[in-house]
């Protein structure tokens, strides 16, 4: 029993580190080979406090979290700011891991290679279990909050995330800091569980164990890595003789999973009633093999090898199936019990929430929330241009993509940007939204100069966009895509997010839900709110992208070929939608489009580009009859359909 406790404690300690890494590598997609170093920092910090100063465990662990977090910020700022390629980032973290080891080998306080022996045994199965459960709970809460959604969004598509105003650096640093904090906590526990600490134990094997756990368990899942690491710890204990093959197993699993099941065991999904049987199959296999092998070991002395092997195999098979069946039964029972139980719990929590709402949530904040749901962009019609593009030029090396371009967009206008392929239309969008810096010229938005500002700042100034090739947060639900974009209106703190403080998080989340739902209704997707985004048909993904852009309440919306790849019916739907949002919100829109029927039917004015310069401007009628436009188009043999 004590031995089982020991294995459990071991697994729990690694699970804590893995949960943190799941938030970093699993969700942001940045690969770290140096997380053992954060464990080392946390371990040494806590050990020094209890060993030399006689601190109790809990405050020491808090210090170990703080120490790891501080170091992670120090190391994360330069590396993440430089936006290293993922392989460069990985090798940089590997170097960091080595540097930390060298430091501990040479510092007098940490006593070199011998480390600190004889640390008091303060961590056991009980407190480790409690801390593990709390860790999982905190991570889950974090991921379900506005902060978590931002990090998930960055992991899924950093460009799209930036284009809804999510700054990469602070959010990536936040997730690194969280993962480092939990790694530090785990290191602190480890030191007080094995009662010594040395630089040598924080080696690459340790880093790769938790990384393998995250990858095999599923990047984008918490419970998946949980199960994976638990198996990684338990299986070699069951088959001691296999201890050497354990690392071979990680390696092979990594290759197999990343090649054939890149989402991992549970990928993007947490363990739920539906995939729970799978877990039982895995557990059954483990137990079956254990029973089989120990049976074989026991009987091979008495029976012939073949006989004992055969019976052992039969036994293993039987146990595996037995447990798998048991699992099915259990799931069946649970599926009868859990949902009603869940409803009942929800009812209680709802009651408590409403009962104490007035106590904890100021009336003023409640009113604010109510108002925000109703809010719509109202544009003051002044006659001043919303967007004023003045003489912008963009060169890529020797190629001039945009050449001395001027145009204005007036409030409430739908402005078309057309031109043959390669005429620089999308480049213009990228210049307006700040993705590319200007070579020369100036862009004004609502009278202020925006050129030179960061993309995220420009988004928050009120210019949002969609992409020629759709960029959604594919594995989020439709609703979450929009909720993520509402991040600027969230008003709870990180601490509230971690503990899911009901009266801080819930009113806001309810409001975000409602707002997102309203937006989906506006574009006609509310029925599909809980579908995973990349399972939507193409046309609807476009609409979702528009809804997401609207969530930021823009003053100017840039639509990059919204009708691309659509059939006539779909593009007619889209035209109606664009008209609708334009009319209800008096929204100013710039539209790049190749479908001339779309352009001619909804644009108030057009700017025509060719080779990066403006060749015509005016109402659709004027442009249609402009000989230069005709020449540019006919020369390019692009479909041309006059307005009907």
């Amino acid at each position, binding site marked *: *029993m004590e*031995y089982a406790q020991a294995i459990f404690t071991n697994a729990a300690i690694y699970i804590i580190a893995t949960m943190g890494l799941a938030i970093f590598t699993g969700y942001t997609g940045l690969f770290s080979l140096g997380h053992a170093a954060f464990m080392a920092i946390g371990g040494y910090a806590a050990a020094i406090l209890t060993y030399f100063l006689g601190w109790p465990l809990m405050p020491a662990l808090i210090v170990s979290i703080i120490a790891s977090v501080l170091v992670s910020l120090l190391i994360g700022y330069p590396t993440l700011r430089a936006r290293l390629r993922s392989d460069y980032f990985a090798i940089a973290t590997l170097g960091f891991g080595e540097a930390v080891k060298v430091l501990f080998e040479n510092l007098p306080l940490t006593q070199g290679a011998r480390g600190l022996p004889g640390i008091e045994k303060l961590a056991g199965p009980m407190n480790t279990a409690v801390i593990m459960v709390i860790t999982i709970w905190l991570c889950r809460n974090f991921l379900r909050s506005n902060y978590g959604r931002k990090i998930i969004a960055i992991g899924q598509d950093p460009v799209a995330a930036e284009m809804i105003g999510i700054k990469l650096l602070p959010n990536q640093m936040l997730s690194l800091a969280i993962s480092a904090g939990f790694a530090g906590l785990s290191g602190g526990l480890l030191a007080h569980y094995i009662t010594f600490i040395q630089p040598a134990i924080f080696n690459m094997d340790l880093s790769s164990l938790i990384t393998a756990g995250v990858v095999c368990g599923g990047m984008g899942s918490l419970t998946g890595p949980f199960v994976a690491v638990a198996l990684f710890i338990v299986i070699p204990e069951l088959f001691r003789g296999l201890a050497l093959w354990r690392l071979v197993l990680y390696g092979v699993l990594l290759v197999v999973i990343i090649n054939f099941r890149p989402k991992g065991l549970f990928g993007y999904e947490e363990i739920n009633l539906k995939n729970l049987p799978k877990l039982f199959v895995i557990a059954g296999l483990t137990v079956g093999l254990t029973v089989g092998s120990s049976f074989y070991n026991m009987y091979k002395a008495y029976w012939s090898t073949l006989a004992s092997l055969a019976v052992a195999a039969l036994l293993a098979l039987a146990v595996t199936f037995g447990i798998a069946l048991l699992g099915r039964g259990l799931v069946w029972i649970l599926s009868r019990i859990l949902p009603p139980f869940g409803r009942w719990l929800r009812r209680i929590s709802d009651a408590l929430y409403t009962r104490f709402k007035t106590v904890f949530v100021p009336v003023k904040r409640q009113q604010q929330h109510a108002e925000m749901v109703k809010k719509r962009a109202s544009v003051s019609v002044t006659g001043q241009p919303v967007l004023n593009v003045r003489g912008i030029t963009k060169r890529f090396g020797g190629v001039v993509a945009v050449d001395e371009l001027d145009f204005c967009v007036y409030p409430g206008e739908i402005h078309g940007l057309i031109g043959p392929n390669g005429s620089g239309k999308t480049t213009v969008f990228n210049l307006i939204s700040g993705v590319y810096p200007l070579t020369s010229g100036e862009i004004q938005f609502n009278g202020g100069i925006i050129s030179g500002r960061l993309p995220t700042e420009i988004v928050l100034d009120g210019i949002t966009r969609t992409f020629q090739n759709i960029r959604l947060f594919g594995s989020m639900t439709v609703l979450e895509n929009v909720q993520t974009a509402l991040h600027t209106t969230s008003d709870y703190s990180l601490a509230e997010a971690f503990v899911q403080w009901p009266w801080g998080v819930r009113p806001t989340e309810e409001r975000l839900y409602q707002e997102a739902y309203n937006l989906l209704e506006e574009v006609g997707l509310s029925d599909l709110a809980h579908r995973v985004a990349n399972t939507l048909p193409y046309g609807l993904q476009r609409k979702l992208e528009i809804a997401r852009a609207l969530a930021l309440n823009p003053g100017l919306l840039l639509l990059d070929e919204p009708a691309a790849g659509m059939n006539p019916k779909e593009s007619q739907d889209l035209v109606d939608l664009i008209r609708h949002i334009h009319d209800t919100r008096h929204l100013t829109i710039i539209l790049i489009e190749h479908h001339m029927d779309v352009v001619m039917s909804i644009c108030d004015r057009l700017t025509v580009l060719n080779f990066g310069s403006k060749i015509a401007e005016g109402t659709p009628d004027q442009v249609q009859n402009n000989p230069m436009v005709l020449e540019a188009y006919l020369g390019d043999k692009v479909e041309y359909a006059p307005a009907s």
Partner: protein
Amino acid sequence: MKHLVRLVLIAVLLSSVLAACTPPAATAQTIKIGHLVALTGGNATWGQSEANALTMIVDKINSEGGVNGKKIEVITYDSRADKLEAVNVVKRMVEQDKVVAIIGPGQSGVANAVREVNNSAKVPMIGTTPTNPTVTVQDDGKPVPYTFRVCFIDPFQGTVAAQFALADLGAKKAGILYDVGDEYSQYLAKYFVEAFEKGGGTITANEAFRSGELDFRAQLGKIKDSNPDVVFVPTMNKDAALAAKQARDLGITATLMGGDGWGSPDIFELSGGAINGGYFVNIAALEDPTIQDFIKEYQTKYNAEPVLPNPLMAYDAMIWLADALKRTNGEGGEKLAKALEDTKDLQVLTGKLTMDPATHNPLNKPAVIQQAKDGKFVYVKTFVTQ
């Protein structure tokens, strides 16, 4: 699916019936002893030899009637000389297998790592070759209650090396190259420096490298420039071999010296013969007349020479443990620790064993100086007591 389920149910029934009808013979009264040893990893040459020798002595004890009629059963686990792995293994020994005592490990780092586990479980542990003083003595000077050893300790080893260098080699100046990432190496270097300087010598260069590095020529170049008479390399065989090879490449002519980490026969091949002429301290030598019978027996049984000193130490430890168990009548825990502590003048393979209760170290353990010569370790000299 239905068929499958039925099939499985039948299989379950069948196998449980089979399992029930021939239970393995209830094990007769045995005394379980754990053996913590590095069977794989960098220290495997010693570890495998140690496991062989332990089997030899246990078979012998059992064939002579065991301990007061009870047979000794050894449960061996591979530590890979990895500290975390060793902690798990010892947990398994004391909590799952319920051993009364543990023989091993051979590495000071491993012994220190598992200290808490075997001591809190009150399972005595007899280290074979962990030579760091901290293994059996706590920082407050008291002995670690349930940890013992049968070998000498590093301050003695360092002193012997320094005395040999000063007196026998006539060295005045010494250079040192050690591994900063390895506690054995770091401490042995320290003890050598202390003893060498106390004896009137000077340390001309004290250089270090990190575990896992392969090229020490930069450090050796500095040592060469300081022109020492001896170069002390207190490391395991791998680094000693590399250092010897590179020292020769650089034209260092000073005598190389080392500690008991050198004593693996593959050091000749690994160093490309460059180790030849070097002297090192060991716990025992093959030439020792008292162990010739053992060596013969080992050679006939395993068709190889034992890799000293681990087999001898495991052999001694087992004799000692069996003797103590006889006195406690197979009981472990506090009683066994007391019995181990109270051992005086016990005849073991390498001589008479007397425990120092204050340190849990054996008293009067000799150290031998060996020279690496033409592919063989040649006995040079024995040092007794400091």
